[in-house]
């Protein structure tokens, strides 16, 4: 290595910390930088990031393809909506109940479904979404059928004497940002734990993992439940943000969107899911301005993804991250 090379290497600074700081500032200042519509798009992206994080644990880390995420998202949305409409409970109660109920529903669904082999499991999870929608449509006394729930109050907090309502788009954005950050942290903790390593082992080779003492079936069930909890909490945000929940919350389009976020962003990576949510949901929301071009642009985006980024955008993000990291 010549002297010139060395000199150049020294001059290259580690830009990662400044970049993270800049992103943080942008995230915090976003409502004041962009228009209200941009803020709205970001909120939708943050809402979908939750079920996508859950799905990533399932698809990306454990290697189980599921289309059921919209079902748990819908269960969460209805739970939060019903609680808020009928009992006026504070937001954190609704969100927790939404997550818990979605998780509780995942248990009886997961037990038989996870006994099935790969493709049958996928078909089974597809069924959950359809069943969910049928229940939402027909259990009229609770869900009001096709009319759905409307006038769901804006989220309010009541902590002792302190109580406030998250009313504007900007304040909702900060709430969603906080929850999104917490969820990302939670996923990070799960993935970094020894259980995360076992999940990867199951994804890589289930029989081998089993032969090394890993109770694969129980892990898969737990991860299935955790992923449903994430989706449920995401659903509660959705209900409170849109203030309307209808049986259309249970739709395949949502499941596929969540799957595209995970696969497109980079299955098995956390940064990929964050990036994927911003790109695929933020983008489609932003593209609503040109409705005639929207689906075409979206489709082109997916084609680019399939042909040039088979592993999603995660490898690109990683390369960029290493590049700005300065010395090798």
């Amino acid at each position: 290595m010549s002297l010139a090379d060395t000199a150049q290497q020294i001059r290259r600074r580690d830009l990662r910390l400044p970049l993270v700081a800049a992103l943080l500032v942008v995230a915090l200042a976003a409502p004041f930088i962009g228009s209200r519509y941009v803020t709205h798009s970001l909120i939708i992206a943050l809402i979908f990031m939750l079920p996508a994080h859950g799905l990533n644990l399932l698809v990306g880390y454990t290697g189980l393809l599921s289309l059921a995420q919209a079902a748990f998202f819908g269960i969460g949305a209805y739970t939060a909506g019903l609680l808020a409409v009928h009992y006026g409970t504070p937001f954190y109660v609704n969100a927790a109940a939404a997550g818990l109920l979605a998780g509780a529903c995942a248990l009886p669904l997961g037990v038989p479904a996870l006994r099935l082999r790969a493709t049958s499991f996928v078909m089974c999870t597809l069924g959950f979404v359809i069943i969910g929608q049928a229940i939402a449509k027909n259990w009229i006394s609770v869900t009001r059928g096709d009319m759905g729930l409307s006038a769901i109050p804006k989220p309010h907090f009541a902590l002792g004497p302190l109580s406030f309502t998250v009313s504007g788009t900007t304040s909702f954005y900060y709430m969603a940002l906080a929850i999104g950050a917490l969820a990302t942290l939670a996923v990070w903790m799960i993935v970094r734990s020894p259980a995360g390593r076992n999940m990867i082992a199951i994804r890589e080779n289930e029989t081998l993992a089993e032969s090394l003492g890993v109770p694969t079936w129980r892990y898969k069930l737990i991860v299935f439940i955790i992923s449903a909890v994430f989706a449920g909490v995401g659903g509660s945000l959705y209900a409170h943000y849109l203030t309307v929940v209808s049986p259309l919350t249970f739709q395949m389009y949502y499941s596929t969107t969540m799957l595209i976020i995970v696969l497109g962003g980079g299955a098995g990576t956390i940064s990929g899911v964050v990036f994927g949510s911003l790109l695929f949901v933020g983008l489609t929301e932003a593209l609503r301005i040109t409705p005639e071009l929207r689906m075409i642009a979206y489709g082109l985006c997916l084609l680019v993804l399939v042909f040039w980024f088979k592993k999603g955008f995660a490898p690109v993000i990683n390369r960029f991250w290493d590049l700005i990291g300065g010395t090798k």
Partner: protein
Amino acid sequence: MTGLPILEIDKISKSYGAVKAVSDVSLHVNRGEIAGLIGPNGSGKSTFFDCSTGLQRPDTGTVKLDGQDITGWSLNRIAREGRMLRSFQKTVVFKALDVEENLIIAGQMFTFPSLLSTFGIGRMSKQRISGLRDRARELIKMAGLWDVRHQPAGNLSGGQQKLIQFASMLMPEPKIILLDEPMAGINPKIIERVIETILYANRSLGVSFLVIEHNIDVVTSICQRVVVLDQGKKLVEGLPHDIIADERVREAYLGG
């Protein structure tokens, strides 16, 4: 050490439809012994292995490990609670993960007291993992894989992968290891190394072995006793040299 066998398999049978893959096979492995299991292709060796280790459920018969009846236990429970580990002919390592991670995974379920405790990332959890890492590094050195320990296991040669698998099975301090054709498809140099590690595990760590192997030289050099299967039945059992000389065994191989 008592004289009781570590593994006692009594009259195991397994059928697939009309085909009797294994019928009434009994076998035992003494404590500290390296026993061999040989037989022509299709003689039921692998099915017998699968039924003994919980990958499949035998139709009849019992499996006793260290005096405890483990018939019907799942593969993961037999590994975790029984500390009876097994290898596979084809699936060998977690290809995408590096050598060290492969070994850490192999040790995790034996180090953490419960499934839920594996979700922890606190000090306790970190301590346990660093303990596993130390043990993994020792075994990696022993297996001669130190220089490649941070490489994805899938990038290494077939023989090296077998060594990784072998080292992985030593992570949980096993009582007995069942090896399914450990020498298949690896070059003679690595065969020496695998033999060395088997003997090391047997003599220094006190691990018993049951080995399926086609390489008759390997069988005679490491096994103290050999059982021969033919057409799902036990043909004969005895010392390696007697087995090679046995007329019935020759017939089974040549006639099969």
